[in-house]
């Protein structure tokens, strides 16, 4: 890779990496795992940078890799990641809605990912589907089920996703 490509990747990385780490964290609820998933996604992106950099939205590509990797990791997380490795917010950190986060953590990984992309990244259902590599109707089902479960857990009313 030439110096110009290095520079454009570095710029891309600095812009997108924090967001991808945070999104991965919200899916995995584990800081170390989130860092690793994000780094893996960006390493793959760098490996294919000559091609990816020409895409309309390289940020969507790296998220697609990261989210799918995060879902895969999350599915095995209960087997591999000890409970102690979860990053619980400390009292020194900003206040966190612990009940909500526990309820989100209890969701199946795909539903969790859909919730994070829809609510945290503020993406429309079509983009959630694109990143999760599923149809819009499947993404909608994930969101609907997630919200239903969250409302049950948190005792709040739920309206449908449009």
């Amino acid at each position, binding site marked *: 890779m030439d110096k110009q490509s290095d520079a454009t990747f570095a710029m891309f990385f600095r812009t997108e990496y924090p967001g991808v780490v945070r999104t991965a964290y919200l899916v995995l609820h584990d800081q170390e795992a989130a860092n*690793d998933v994000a780094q893996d996604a960006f390493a793959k992106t760098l490996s294919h940078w000559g091609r990816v950099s020409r895409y309309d939205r390289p940020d969507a590509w790296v998220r697609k890799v990261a989210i799918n990797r995060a879902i*895969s990791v999350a599915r095995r997380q209960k087997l591999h990641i000890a409970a102690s490795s979860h990053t619980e917010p400390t009292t020194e950190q900003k206040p*966190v809605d612990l009940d909500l986060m526990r309820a*989100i953590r209890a969701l199946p990984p795909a539903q969790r990912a859909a919730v994070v992309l829809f609510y*945290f990244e503020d993406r429309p259902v079509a983009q959630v589907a694109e990143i999760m590599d599923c149809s819009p109707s499947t993404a909608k089902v994930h969101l609907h089920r997630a919200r239903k479960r969250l409302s049950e857990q948190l005792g*709040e009313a739920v309206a449908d996703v449009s």
Partner: protein
Amino acid sequence: MSLDGRIRQGLVQAADSVEPNVEGDLMKVTQRARTRRRIQWAAGAVAVAAIGAFLFLGGTDLFDATGDTNPIPPASTGGDGGPTISPTPEDSPSEAVSLTLADLWFTRGEVLFPDTSGLPSAELEGTKLTGEMLLGALVAGTDHAPPEAGLSTSIPEGTKVLGFDIANRIATVDLSSEFVSGGGSLSMRMRVAQVVFTLTQEEEEVEGVLFEIDGEPVDAIGGEGVDVSDPQTRADYEDLLPPIAVTSPNWGTYFVSGETIEGIANVFEATVSWRILDESGEEIANGFATATCGTGCWGDFTTEVEFSIDHSQEGTVEVFESSAENGEPMNVVSVPVTLFTD
């Protein structure tokens, strides 16, 4: 506040607690992209090199280290443009090796079989891994793997890692007495080989392994007496390797066009064939790679593969040897993966 509002606000608050180390992680990502594993096999013996390894000296053991470790030889050579990192004086007292990729060696059938999924963060290449972590994950067994992976282990359940030490490229492992319980001669050799293959990876710069049981040095393992009086190397257990061992991709992982198939093989004329099967079992790409040695000797192979699919799907990477007699696939290694489209 509505449920939607609460979810949004809660996620933003939780995300605020994450402060990525952007510049540090950019370096890690760059190095990870360049990292390629290679196992160098020298005439009749294993040469373990640090080519392509991403080594940090310093840092903290993530695994519960049970013994003090001696400094690992300080210099490591970065291949593929990777870094050469020497320990600083501050690093030396608490040395630990971090590496990006590593295999645990389990068994499949009656041969050794490499696997990465048993690591605490199997999918998480780049997580700090130490010799203790590798060993701990190895003795933990194969419960992590689904039955279809076919993984097994000859290391008895309940085996504990009591100590781990590296000096002059020789690892000394102290295992509990469960390690020598049960099993016949093949099982004894296999469990020793599992430890040896797992610890003698280039990233670790470990060439051989000495064994202790319950804190006492031993010259033999088990009643069948596997001689371990000298440091054990991969060359001592090559006969337990399958004709083809695929080290990448690992089963169950994502596989993108442009990635590599890697492994070690001892096949006719060093020619390793591969093919990619889609979700319906149809072949969508094929090719071959040439190992660095063949027809009676072990060589490593790596080949970049290209395939085209219109949607992500379950698939299979098959690596095999074509029969010299009729061209039929033999010694087939099937790796179920998710074929990922970009």
